[in-house]
């Protein structure tokens, strides 16, 4: 086996040193009836070239060379080449959690930089070293709000990503944590009156997403006023991190839960991504996950360490803030590099390009079908309501035009009828938008004839 660095003679020599006759003796602690005496029923060893070939064949069974006009929590942005070039260094990807700071300063400093950038983007005072993703990060943010306030209920906006809400429901189920939902208005924004009525003295937090699942940017300040007036915390989930390049950060929030995938992380069929929790300094002892802090070594030199670990499971066990053990260090590194490539001005210019592409797509597709939720600003997504079933459109676009169309909303929002949430990024070409518009129009017209 090519990954195993031993010759048969060396194995024999080692067995002799240990003082056993055969390897089987070392497995004697496993009761004989449970020792596997046959080969596992899996395919035989494959050569490297065969493995590459097998995965190429699988890749070819996926959509290849398609234009993606789909977001809905996973965004197709360009990934600068320096990202993979750098993270492919073994020093980054074959290291572990930086428990020994003397030989992990690279990872520690990179996370410290990442935490700083997240604070700058979100307008929060502190950020952690990352969570699994945006959905679990949102669930952890809600549980954090429960600990901070000592209250026991949470309200989720119905315009939060449906799968994020499902994850929160799973996390909340056995913690005696009732969840309620608050509706959206015809602008696509949270219904402030309904929200005001829904908040009780037991409401720990209100979770919103902005831009929300429809692409609509919430009026965070107005929502914060309503929430804070009743002593609850406002948690803002952000699935499209690039929006922060041009959209006002949710500075009035108490906790921000960000999905950072947009910043240089491959779509990779849904993961790995990286969530991050950012918050105010006063809540730092309740934040879940790893934190990196600055300190000095015994010679007074600046250095970085994992810190405030008394919150965590390896110290606190069942009283920990979370059971989370890993962060998404390598993904956070991609995000860090991405933000360095674009920097202060590039993130803004790139966000502006997204805004322009989405405006064009909205106008072009909107000429053929109905754009919902006018009357509130959006970033790079919008909802298009059609006469034809959204899945049909999606299938036809894929088959005829090599375009991945919008995400059909019927499953999660039946009240919106034949609607889909579409997305345009800097990678969406005018040609693709025009082709998609023709396809949407073709059917609308033929249906009119019928």
């Amino acid at each position, binding site marked *: 086996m090519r990954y195993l660095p031993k010759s048969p003679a060396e194995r024999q020599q080692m067995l002799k040193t240990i003082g056993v006759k055969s390897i089987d003796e070392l497995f004697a602690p*496993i009761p004989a009836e*449970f020792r596997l005496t046959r080969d596992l029923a899996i395919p035989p060893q494959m050569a490297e070239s065969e493995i590459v070939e097998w995965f190429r064949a699988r890749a070819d069974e996926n959509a290849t060379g398609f234009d993606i006009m789909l977001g809905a929590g996973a965004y197709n942005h360009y990934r600068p080449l320096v990202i993979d070039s750098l993270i492919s260094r*073994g020093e980054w*990807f074959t*290291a572990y959690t930086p428990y020994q700071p003397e030989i992990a300063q690279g990872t520690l400093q990179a996370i410290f930089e990442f935490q700083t950038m997240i604070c700058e983007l979100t307008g929060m005072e502190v950020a952690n070293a990352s969570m699994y993703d945006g959905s679990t990060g949102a669930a952890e943010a809600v549980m954090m709000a429960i600990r901070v306030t000592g209250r026991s209920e949470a309200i989720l906006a119905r315009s939060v990503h449906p799968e994020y809400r499902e994850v929160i429901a799973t996390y909340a*189920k056995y913690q005696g944590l009732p969840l309620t939902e608050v509706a959206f208005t015809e602008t696509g924004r949270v219904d402030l009156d309904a929200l005001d009525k829904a908040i009780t003295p037991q409401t720990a937090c209100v979770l919103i997403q902005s831009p929300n699942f429809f692409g609509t940017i919430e009026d965070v300040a107005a929502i914060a006023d309503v929430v804070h007036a009743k002593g609850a915390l406002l948690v803002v989930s952000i699935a499209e991190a690039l929006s922060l390049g041009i959209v006002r950060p949710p500075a009035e929030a108490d906790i921000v839960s960000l999905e950072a995938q947009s910043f240089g992380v491959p779509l990779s069929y849904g993961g790995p991504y990286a969530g991050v929790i950012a918050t105010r300094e006063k809540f730092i002892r309740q934040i879940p996950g790893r934190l990196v802090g600055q300190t000095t070594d015994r010679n007074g030199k600046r250095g970085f360490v994992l810190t405030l670990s008394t919150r965590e499971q390896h110290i606190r066990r069942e009283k920990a803030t979370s059971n989370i053990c890993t962060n998404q260090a390598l993904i956070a590194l991609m995000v860090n590099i991405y933000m*360095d490539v674009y920097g202060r001005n590039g993130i803004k210019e790139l966000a502006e390009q997204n805004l322009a592409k989405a405006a064009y797509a909205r106008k072009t597709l909107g000429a053929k079908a109905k754009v919902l939720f006018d009357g509130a600003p959006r970033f790079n997504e919008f909802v298009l309501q059609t006469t034809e079933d959204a899945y049909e459109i999606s299938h036809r676009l894929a088959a005829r035009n090599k375009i991945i169309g919008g995400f059909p909303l019927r499953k999660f929002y039946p009240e919106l009828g034949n609607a889909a949430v579409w997305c345009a990024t800097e990678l969406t070409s005018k040609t693709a938008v025009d082709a998609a518009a023709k396809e949407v129009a073709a059917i609308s017209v033929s249906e009119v004839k019928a």
Partner: protein
Amino acid sequence: MSNADIKKVTTHISQNEGLIFEHSSPGKKAYRLRQLDVPAIDAAAELGSALRAEPADLPEVSEIEIIRHFTRLSTWNYAVDHGMYPLGSCTMKYNPRVNEVVARLDSIAGAHPYQPEQASQGALRIMKTLADQLIEITGMDAITLQPAAGAHGELTGILLMRAYLESRGNPRKKVLIPDSAHGTNPATAAMVGYEVENLRSNERGMVDLAALEAQMNEDVAGLMLTNPNTLGIFEQQIAQIAEILHRKGGLLYMDGANMNALVAKARPGDFGVDVMHLNLHKTFSTPHGGGGPGSGPVACKAYLEPFLPKPIVVEAADGRLSLDYNRPQSIGRVRAFFGNFGMHVRALAYIMANGPDGLRQTTEDAVLNANYLRKQLEGTFELPYATPTMHEVVFSDKLQNKQGIKTGDIAKRLIDYGFHPYTVSFPMVVHGALMIEPTESEPLEELDLFVDAMKSIAQEAIDTPELIKNAPSSTRLSRLDETAAARKPILRWKRETK
């Protein structure tokens, strides 16, 4: 010995490097955007009061500075690619390069999770193939790939247990956890609303059957057991343990952190485990990445299958794959989309490269390496449990305590010898533990260098203990002040105000 005599390493020039923010200067850039092919917009008009007033204060740097910054930083890290990384229970094995290549193929890395199923057959096939093979490897009946890490898998597994017991009328109140368990186990049980009850180990380092018998009753949902446990000891009475639990309607959860001791040699499904998680980033070679991403599939017996998170990948008679969301008894989702798919790709590539004989040899070599180290270091370091061990071995610092040397000091000195330390002070059942897991990836030469280093440090403890207490002496930084870091946390860089 003096640092100059150490065989494995020599000090060499290491570049200094500031924070990336400290390289920033207005006007520098590392990007060029495309020409816009649609009309430009006025962002202020488009966004109104939602427009961002001040740009985020991100660094302004050029491409060469980014390359140098992260290359320099990388050289300050120790990694598996440098040498043995014997962190116990972390399984720091070689990360094959083919895994990285196939995970980055365009239509795999570029696949959108919501692209239509007919345009995702390749991705679904990868998930289905991995799922089937992990089921065979564990001897279980069903699996979910959705959990994003080991602790996330534990959460999923205990949720399954709870949902199953609830469906039978009573979720029960407590979960039993051995005193040698990882901290994630009790933290997980608490997240699912269970009280945690500690289960004592016996003098051989295994579950105390009498204690289990006494503590097991109709209030106990089950036991979370790591097997081999964190002492590296296989729970020889595993069948009796399962039987005691099952007799009173409880379930056996297995923490699969130490599965590298068992693959192709024994299957948890065969020895009474009801539900377990795997760590693809330990046993199945997906890279640790400096702390993540991981992946923690959960395998279970057939009676727990209806409760698995949704969706699961199903295959029709004609071979077409689809995602099944219609699972009314499911615990729900534990993560958006389908889990850390990129890790699924890598784990499958690893299993393919190994085949049944390669996986068996891998496990045998992992156990061989650990027992070789045990034999060579026994006597130099105290072995608190004489019970045979599998893929890892736990010593204590008792013999070195006489000179005032603790496990943490030995660990720091090991850095000067060119090794990453072992896991320090864990498991907690051993006072001053040195928990060593070499994995199968170490050549004999590297193991011998490690043995030499450990013996040399033991001698230093007698001759020159101050050398150990002041270690490491060859690194950029030494003995960072963690107390100060926690007392007055500085968690972000701030621009100096003029």
